[in-house]
C-alpha cells in the first residue's frame, strides 16, 4: 500500500430542509468548494474516479442516485461506485476512496456524500431509518433508533453508574462548539438545564441528546503522494485505517471479553461482560486496527483532536471508552473532568458533532473528514471565518463513523506530514 493524502474538502451548510437544491446540486457545491480550495490547480479532468455515499433510497425516492451525481459534477465517463453502510456510510466511503489510491488504481479520487432527509416528515424519516434494523424481529415491535440507543445507555447506566447529566454535558459541549461553526445546523448556546429540561423522546434520551435530520452534502478529494505534491500546498496524510462490525440485532451480541488496547490490562475488566448492549464492539475493533497501523499506543497522549459520531450524546460517552480515551465505565468521568472540551486534554467534536451540525447520513462521515482535515491544516479560521474552534498545534487526529447500534464502525487517523 502506498501513502494517501487528503488534499481538499468541501461542505454545504447543513439545514433542516434545503428545498431549493436537490442532492446533485448540493454535492456540486461541496465539490466546487473543494476544487476552489486548491486554487484551480485541480480540475475534474485530473480526477480518476469517485466513490459516492448516501444511505437511503427511500429518502432519495430515486434508485441509482449516484449516477446522477456523477454526471452532474462532470465526472462521466469515469468509474464510480456507491457505498452504503447505514450511519457509517460516509466513513466507509472515505476508506474506500483511500483504498482506491493506496492500491495504485487511482492518482486522485473524489469521495462525495449527501442525504436529503427533508423529503418526508420526521416520524416517517425515523421509520425509514428504523428499516435499517431487522424488519422481522426488531422494527415490528415498535423498534426505532432512539429507542435502541436509549436501551443501550440504560444498560451502560446500570453497569457503570453513568448519569443523565453526564451525557447531557456532552450535548452542551457540542452545541456550544457549533455556535462558532458556520456550517452547523443547530447553533444553540445550550445550558445543562436546557438539555435536562428538554422533553423525553425515549427515556433517558431527551430532545437535545439526539441529532437532527438534515439536508446536506460533503466532499473530500484524496490523492497519491505525487498528485498531492502537484495539486496541494499542505496535504494531510492518512496514517491509520480501521473498521469493525457487529450483529445487526443488538440482542444477539455476546457477553464475553473486551478486546484490549495496548494500554489496557485484562484485570481492568475482570467482571465486565462485553459488549452486551452497553458498548460498541465494532468501534473497539475499528480503533484497534487504526491505532496499530498508525502506531498509536495511548490515544489520549497520541491524538490532538477527534471528530466522532455522536448521533446521541450517550453514544459519544460510550465511544470515549471504545476508542480507549478512558477505560470502560469511565466515559462519564471523562466528560465530568472536561477532558473532551475545547480546553480539555483531547477536544472531541470541536465542530459541534452530529448533535449540532446535523446528520445528513451519507454526508456526515465526509463532513467529519473535511473538518478534521482543516484542523490539521490549521485552516479552520479560513473556513469557519473565526479561530474559536481551531485546536492549537493539532498534528494528529481521528475520525469515527458509526452505523445504527454499532453495526459498522470506521476509525481513520489523519496526520500532518
Amino acid at each position: 500500500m502506498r501513502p494517501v493524502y487528503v488534499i481538499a474538502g468541501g461542505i454545504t451548510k447543513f439545514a433542516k430542509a434545503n428545498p431549493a437544491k436537490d442532492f446533485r446540486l448540493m454535492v456540486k457545491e461541496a465539490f466546487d468548494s473543494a476544487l476552489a480550495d486548491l486554487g484551480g490547480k485541480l480540475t475534474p479532468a485530473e480526477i480518476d474516479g469517485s466513490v459516492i455515499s448516501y444511505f437511503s433510497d427511500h429518502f432519495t425516492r430515486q434508485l441509482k442516485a449516484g449516477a446522477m451525481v456523477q454526471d452532474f459534477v462532470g465526472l462521466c465517463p469515469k468509474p464510480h461506485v456507491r457505498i452504503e453502510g447505514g450511519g457509517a456510510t460516509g466513513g466507509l466511503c472515505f476508506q474506500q476512496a483511500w483504498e482506491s489510491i493506496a492500491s495504485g488504481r487511482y492518482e486522485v479520487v473524489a469521495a462525495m456524500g449527501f442525504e436529503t432527509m427533508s423529503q418526508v416528515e420526521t416520524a416517517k424519516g425515523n421509520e425509514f431509518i428504523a428499516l435499517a434494523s431487522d424488519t422481522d424481529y426488531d422494527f415490528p415491535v415498535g423498534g426505532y433508533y432512539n429507542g435502541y440507543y436509549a436501551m443501550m445507555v440504560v444498560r451502560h447506566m446500570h453497569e457503570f453508574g453513568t448519569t443523565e447529566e453526564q451525557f447531557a454535558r456532552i450535548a452542551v459541549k457540542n452545541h456550544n462548539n457549533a455556535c462558532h461553526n458556520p456550517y452547523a445546523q443547530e447553533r444553540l448556546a445550550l445550558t445543562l438545564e436546557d438539555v435536562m429540561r428538554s422533553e423525553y423522546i425515549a427515556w433517558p434520551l431527551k430532545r437535545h441528546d439526539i441529532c437532527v435530520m438534515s439536508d446536506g452534502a460533503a466532499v473530500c478529494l484524496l490523492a497519491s503522494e505525487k498528485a498531492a505534491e502537484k495539486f496541494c500546498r499542505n496535504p494531510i496524510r492518512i496514517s491509520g485505517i480501521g473498521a469493525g462490525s457487529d450483529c445487526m440485532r443488538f440482542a444477539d451480541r455476546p457477553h464475553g471479553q473486551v478486546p484490549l488496547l495496548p494500554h489496557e490490562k485484562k484485570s481492568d475488566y475482570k467482571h465486565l461482560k462485553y459488549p452486551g448492549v452497553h458498548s460498541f464492539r465494532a468501534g473497539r475493533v475499528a480503533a484497534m486496527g487504526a491505532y496499530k497501523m498508525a502506531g498509536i499506543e495511548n490515544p489520549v497522549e497520541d491524538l490532538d483532536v477527534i471528530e466522532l459520531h455522536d448521533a446521541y450524546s450517550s453514544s459519544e460517552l460510550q465511544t470515549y471508552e471504545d476508542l480507549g480515551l478512558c477505560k470502560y465505565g469511565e466515559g462519564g468521568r471523562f466528560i465530568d473532568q472536561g477532558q473532551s472540551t475545547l480546553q480539555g486534554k483531547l477536544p472531541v467534536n470541536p465542530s459541534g458533532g452530529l448533535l449540532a451540525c446535523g446528520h445528513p447520513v451519507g454526508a456526515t462521515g465526509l463532513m467529519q473528514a473535511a473538518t478534521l482535515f482543516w484542523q490539521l491544516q490549521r485552516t479552520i479560521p479560513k473556513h469557519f471565518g473565526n479561530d474559536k474552534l481551531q485546536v492549537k498545534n493539532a498534528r494528529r487526529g481521528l475520525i469515527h463513523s458509526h452505523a445504527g447500534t454499532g453495526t459498522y464502525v470506521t476509525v481513520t487517523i489523519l496526520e500532518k506530514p
Partner: protein
Amino acid sequence: MPTEPRLPEIERGTEVFAVDPLTIRTHFEVDYQHSYKQDTPFFHGLAKGKLLGSHCPKCSYKFATPRVHCMYCGGPTQWFELPTEGRVHSWTVCYFAAQEFLKEVPFTLVLVEFKGVDTLFLSRLVGVERRDIKIGMKAKARFRRKATWTVRDVYFVRAET
C-alpha cells in the same frame, strides 16, 4: 378537418405544498408477499403460545432470537422452547416513534434475558409504569389470542415475585 391528437386532461389535481421551489405530494405504497422462510417455525410457535430460540448442539450456545445457523461454528442449530419467564436486561419508554407506531406512544421496549440463554430478545413490556421498571425485574411472556403472524404476537408483563 381531423382533430389534433391530445392527451386527456386529468380529473383530480395534484396537492401542492409550495409553489417556489415547487413541492408536490407524491405517494408510494407497496404490498409485499413477505415469506419468513427458514424462520417460519418461530412465527408458528408464537401462534401456539411458544417462544422458540435456537440451540447449537456443537457449541452449546443458546440464541434467544432464533437463527438457523450458529454464529460461532457455522453449523445448523436446533429449535428449542425458551422459558416463558425472564428478566428485564434493559428497557426504555418511547414518547415518540416511527410513523407506524406513533399512535401507540408512550410504549415500553425491553430486552429480555432468560436463564441459561446466551443472547437477548427484544419485545414490549405492557402494564408497568416507568418509575416501576427496574433492570433485573421478572417478566413473563404473553401471547395474543389472535395471531398477527408477526413478532408482535408475543409481549411481556410483570411476573409475580
